[in-house]
């Protein structure tokens, strides 16, 4: 719902556009230590994706060095990054785009 404020000078009600937060990305970085099957299972658990989706993400990380595994609100991105880091993966959060 847009917010409504009152312009005190004119007494006119002013509708404001809802502020949309720019999306944030969680990026997982490749490392040479973590076994692939562990990464797939962590992605399934934390990102709630299927085994096939998790494997595709893992292969992207493995072959290109990194992959965007989540894009959305900052708070959610921070939470996912914290879970990935606690699972000993390398992750970072960046503004999307």
């Amino acid at each position: 719902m847009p917010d409504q404020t009152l312009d005190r000078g004119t007494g006119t009600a002013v509708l404001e556009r809802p502020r949309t937060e720019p999306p944030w990305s969680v990026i997982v970085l490749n490392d040479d230590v973590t076994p692939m099957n562990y990464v797939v299972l962590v992605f399934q658990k934390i990102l709630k994706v299927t085994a096939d989706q998790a494997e595709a993400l893992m292969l992207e990380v493995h072959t290109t060095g990194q992959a965007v595994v989540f894009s959305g609100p900052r708070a959610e991105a921070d939470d996912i990054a914290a879970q990935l880091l606690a699972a000993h993966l390398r992750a970072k959060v960046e503004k999307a785009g």
Partner: protein
Amino acid sequence: MELVFEARRSPDGAVLVRITGVVAAFLCHKASAQEALRPAPAPVVTAGGEEESDPLLHWELDERKGAIARTVQERQADARRTARRVTSAWEAPLRGGDAERYISQAREFTLDPRDAELLAEWCHGLYRAARDAVPTPPGEEPELSDEAVVAAHVACELLAALV
């Protein structure tokens, strides 16, 4: 000596673990050794472009970085406590009358899913520590120790039961 660690989900949502005493003894030894150590430091959070002593996290400087680092540190501390508690239960039969049998024959234990999740993270930390202890030239596969193999297996078995 048979190294058995299997995990599966029971119909009521719990995680059933089958473990031989030799694996239990290894995990218990690791958990109790960690108790004597100081807590791990919080992950280093650096700004983009800075020299990274530990490139665990690196994103724009703001107040939320510290909060994330604390969350990770708290979760890892929780995982250490969980590992100690869970492995204590596994250790008890090793001191009992049928210890000889338990060493090679697996017993079943039930885990809360949250405990299983934290234990998986802790075990993967053990694997990383064992793996990092063996310097390996880039591009070469390391010679994995039994410790690393067991820890990695336990972590994956637990996670596989949870997803």
